[in-house]
């Protein structure tokens, strides 16, 4: 039982990590794949919201999450973390941003640091799936639905019930009126019907 606790060695990500990585085919092989992902992570930290192919976005998201969580865990005085940041961020001013902007922003958060949306796709077109990847707490307008579905709020349920009751009362009233009118006019109708029935007989 002298195993080291794995959870203390690696920070647990708050997103779903698939069991196998994506290969992201590249003529340069695995190094080319890492180059691509480094560019994407750098772009994400720089612009805070980017649109790109879904596969690459989902793959880069995992690395970005890991990078931020490592930065939060160890701070900027930890040599390996600094090296990791140096490797993943191609523009060196972003290393400052990671430790001085993003760490304070996400220090106390209990959810994932990034968000991935499926971008709209043209109907009946054979195009790759696009995604929008963003850091939480960015200054841009929100992407998701701003108005939540409030159909089941207690006020709305009560209002709906009130509407329903009012309508039922109205319907009953209208039905009564029609019924009274029908009683008055019904003899005329029967006479007409009799006349109609007689006509073909006489002709």
């Amino acid at each position, binding site marked *: 039982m002298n195993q080291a606790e794995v959870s203390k060695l690696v920070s647990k990500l708050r997103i779903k990590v698939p069991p196998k990585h994506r290969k992201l085919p590249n003529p340069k092989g695995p190094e080319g794949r890492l180059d691509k992902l480094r560019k994407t992570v750098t772009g994400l930290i720089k612009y805070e919201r980017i649109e790109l192919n879904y596969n690459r976005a989902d793959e880069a998201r995992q690395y970005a999450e890991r990078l931020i969580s490592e930065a939060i865990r160890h701070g900027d005085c930890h040599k390996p973390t600094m090296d990791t940041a140096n490797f993943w961020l191609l523009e060196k001013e972003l290393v400052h941003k990671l430790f001085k902007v993003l760490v304070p922003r996400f220090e106390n958060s209990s959810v994932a640091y990034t968000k991935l949306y499926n971008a709209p796709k043209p109907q009946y077109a054979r195009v790759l799936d696009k995604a929008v990847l963003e850091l939480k707490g960015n*200054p*841009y*307008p929100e992407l998701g639905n701003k108005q939540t579905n409030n159909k089941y709020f207690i006020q709305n349920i009560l209002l709906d019930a009130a509407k329903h009751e009012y309508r039922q009362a109205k319907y009953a009233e209208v039905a009564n009126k029609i019924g009274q009118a029908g009683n008055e006019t019904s003899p005329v109708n029967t006479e007409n019907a009799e006349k109609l029935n007689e006509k073909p007989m006489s002709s």
Partner: protein
Amino acid sequence: MIPRITYICSQLVKNIERNLFHMFGHPPKELALAYVHEHKPVSSPQKFSLKDIIGDGMLWAVPKFRRTNERKLKRKFGSPEYVLKILLPKNNIKVCQDCGHHHEKGRLCEHCYTKVKKETQEIQDKIQEKLGLNPIENDVVVLYEGEKLPDEPKEFWNGKRIVEMKKERPQWFSKNLLQKTTQQPSDSTDVKPTDLA
């Protein structure tokens, strides 16, 4: 299907036979049937004409075998396991809560996303333009024209970069969703419920 298979099989057997004979030589001449050579009267050589080859007519590429009903239907309508060629109703279309346009379930609404994308691009350009190549050490606060800094304690503004946009804040991009930033609050106090009946 069956005619096609018998055709392929017969071709196969023919090929094997031919190759075997080629490899091991032909059967000995003694096995050949005895036949009597008869001298035929030599007919006068006729003039060559195309009519001898063509005759009544000749066929170019034509179907050799009948196409079965199953195969015919698959070619026409596709197969549910692979590609269906017929039109199918889509059951994953939703109405956007914000703008009322239709969008696919689980995806962003295209109408909302285009305007958000445009605004985001503008803000990003502004931030990059203002920042240049300096090390990024501060968070960004975006202010539009005619907006003042919100009332916050001094520590909140410590280490924030303020980026000003040279236009009014779009109405759909409001900070506080309960209160519209670009609309004057009305003075009327009476509340009139609508849509009750």
